[in-house]
């Protein structure tokens, strides 16, 4: 089964019409995974036995026509809790953790009888941009196995790009869906903050985290996002707004006539690789040829985004990660004398270096005497970043630019220098800070590696973004390009 040659709607129709059974599709998915994952190393846990049992039960009762994902195996990032299925957040401290409940996004998908193919690798607790911070394994870019898949949803992006699964769930706190989508040449959407419930997402930066999909096509992404969106009593920041059927808007009549595209000059500065710029500029020219209006604008506080983001996200992380103390769940250190020892040893042995750095930065930023200079200052910058976007959106529909300053880099090349790693997030973090929806779509190749075009929308206007993305996709061939892994497709 080559998932590049089909899509969600086609597979659903085939399942309903019994052209293929859920069991056959599930087996085909695991065949894909077994053929490729020795090299990609995207999966931390496979759910094969349960998946096959669920598929057989579904085949018995038939696939309902109103359940789009019924019988379709999809991947899940391993910081999304899944009942009775090991959930590690790629951390040693959760090595033995089997949640007793499902995240809301999983509940919604289960209500539609989706099949959970397994849990996908990430940077530990979603902290990182390369998936090299996983405590378990290094995931490889599907386009070049010597390069990183991006992160933190690197397992999700690489798995989809490699054609192991049709789609996978990721999370995005500062670019963790968009950067790996860009590096792997797939479609990744981080919806507006509040669009999707965060209940059951292992919290990193609670005011920034969102769940979203990585897919090979814009329409699949749109259809799947509608399925997981909407208000949830368990997440009081989730919005009560109506959820549009994003996929239903995408058809032969979809166009970008008169679409007002803003291109921030700060997104095409020196730090952005020249070849990446060329791909993005060509994409913008293409939009113009399709009838869109492209203007250069300024988002003057962009350069302060990374610093402010790392203060805020680390502060929230230092608070959120206090719950990992070796007492109620997770791994408890052995050879301890007293309770204080349990906390300190469990945490010091259970967390990896990057997680410790973030906890330290956050604890420092919130500590007495530093709160005003760091956390409060960063929160003020955050307000200015949002204001920059509000100004631009007064007379533009979307903002566009690169998702990352470079293509995927070599495994190991940046890991020793945390600050350089952080700077890779310069084009993605402002979106989380402002709570806006942001996506990355394949826009072409630079030196044989995929480049993602980032599309940023107004709050809760994913609809306009999907239409813009779909029009681009349908009029180009970039999304059809497939990685060639060890000579097999």
């Amino acid at each position: 089964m080559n998932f590049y040659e089909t899509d969600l709607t086609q597979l659903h129709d085939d399942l309903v019409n019994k052209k293929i059974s859920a069991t056959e599709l599930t087996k085909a998915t695991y065949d894909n995974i077994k053929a490729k994952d020795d090299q990609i190393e995207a999966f931390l846990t496979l759910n094969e036995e349960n998946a096959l049992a669920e598929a057989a039960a579904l085949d018995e009762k038939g696939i309902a026509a109103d359940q789009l994902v019924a019988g379709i195996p999809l991947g899940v990032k391993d910081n999304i809790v899944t009942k009775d299925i090991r959930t590690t957040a790629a951390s040693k401290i959760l090595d033995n953790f089997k949640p007793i409940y499902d995240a809301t996004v999983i509940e919604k998908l289960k209500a539609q009888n989706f099949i959970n193919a397994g849990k996908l690798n990430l940077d530990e607790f979603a902290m990182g941009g390369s998936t090299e911070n996983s405590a378990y394994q290094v995931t490889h870019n599907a386009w070049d196995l010597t390069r990183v898949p991006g992160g933190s949803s690197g397992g999700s992006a690489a798995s989809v790009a490699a054609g192991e699964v049709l789609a996978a769930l990721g999370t995005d706190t500062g670019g963790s869906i968009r950067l790996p989508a860009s590096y792997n040449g797939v479609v990744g959407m981080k919806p507006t903050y509040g669009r999707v419930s965060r209940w059951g997402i292992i919290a990193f930066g609670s005011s920034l985290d969102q769940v979203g999909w990585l897919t090979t096509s814009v329409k699949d992404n749109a259809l799947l996002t509608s399925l997981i969106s909407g208000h949830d009593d368990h997440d009081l920041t989730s919005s009560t707004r109506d959820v549009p059927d994003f996929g239903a808007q995408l058809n032969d009549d979809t166009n970008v006539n008169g679409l007002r595209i803003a291109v921030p000059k700060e997104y095409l500065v020196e730090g952005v690789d020249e070849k990446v710029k060329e791909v993005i500029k060509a994409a913008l020219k293409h939009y113009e040829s399709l009838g869109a209006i492209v203007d250069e604008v300024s988002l003057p506080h962009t350069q302060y985004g990374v610093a402010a983001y790392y203060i805020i996200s680390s502060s929230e992380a230092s608070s959120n990660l206090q719950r990992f103390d070796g007492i109620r769940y997770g791994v408890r250190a052995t050879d301890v004398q007293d309770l204080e020892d349990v906390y300190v040893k469990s945490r010091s042995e259970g967390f990896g270096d990057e997680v410790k750095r973030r906890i330290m930065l956050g604890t420092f930023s919130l500590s007495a005497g530093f709160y005003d200079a760091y956390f409060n200052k960063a929160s003020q910058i955050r307000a200015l970043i949002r204001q920059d976007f509000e100004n631009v959106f007064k007379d533009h529909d979307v903002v566009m630019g690169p998702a990352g300053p470079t293509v995927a880099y070599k495994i190991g090349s940046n890991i020793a220098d945390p600050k350089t790693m952080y700077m890779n997030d310069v084009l993605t973090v402002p979106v989380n800070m402002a709570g806006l929806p942001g996506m990355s779509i394949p826009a072409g190749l630079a030196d044989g590696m995929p480049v993602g075009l980032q599309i940023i929308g107004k709050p809760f206007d994913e609809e306009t973004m999907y239409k813009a993305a779909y029009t681009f996709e349908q009029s180009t061939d970039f999304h059809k390009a497939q990685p060639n892994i060890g000579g097999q497709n």
Partner: protein
Amino acid sequence: MASQIDEQQVQHVASLAKLKFTDEELSEFTPQLESIIDLFETLEKVDTTGVEPMTSATDRVNVMREDVAVNSHQRDALLKNAPDAEDGYIKVPAIIDESGDAE
């Protein structure tokens, strides 16, 4: 600009965060944290006088729910994840110093 963090400060922050570093880790972490905090200090350049800090991006305000207690009867399931449990309780090492000099 000189950063405000040295090894002693790192030790202090680590104790607040319930983390412990070896001397070797300390000499590796301190310059890394220093360089990131230098980055943080670039924010000083921005005039934020009168700017209201933004702490959330949610579109909701003061969400209330009915104050109703719910018993989800999940004690046994929850305890399965506990590293050590006995008779329906989570077990931990002694909290009170046995010498009797408890704080």
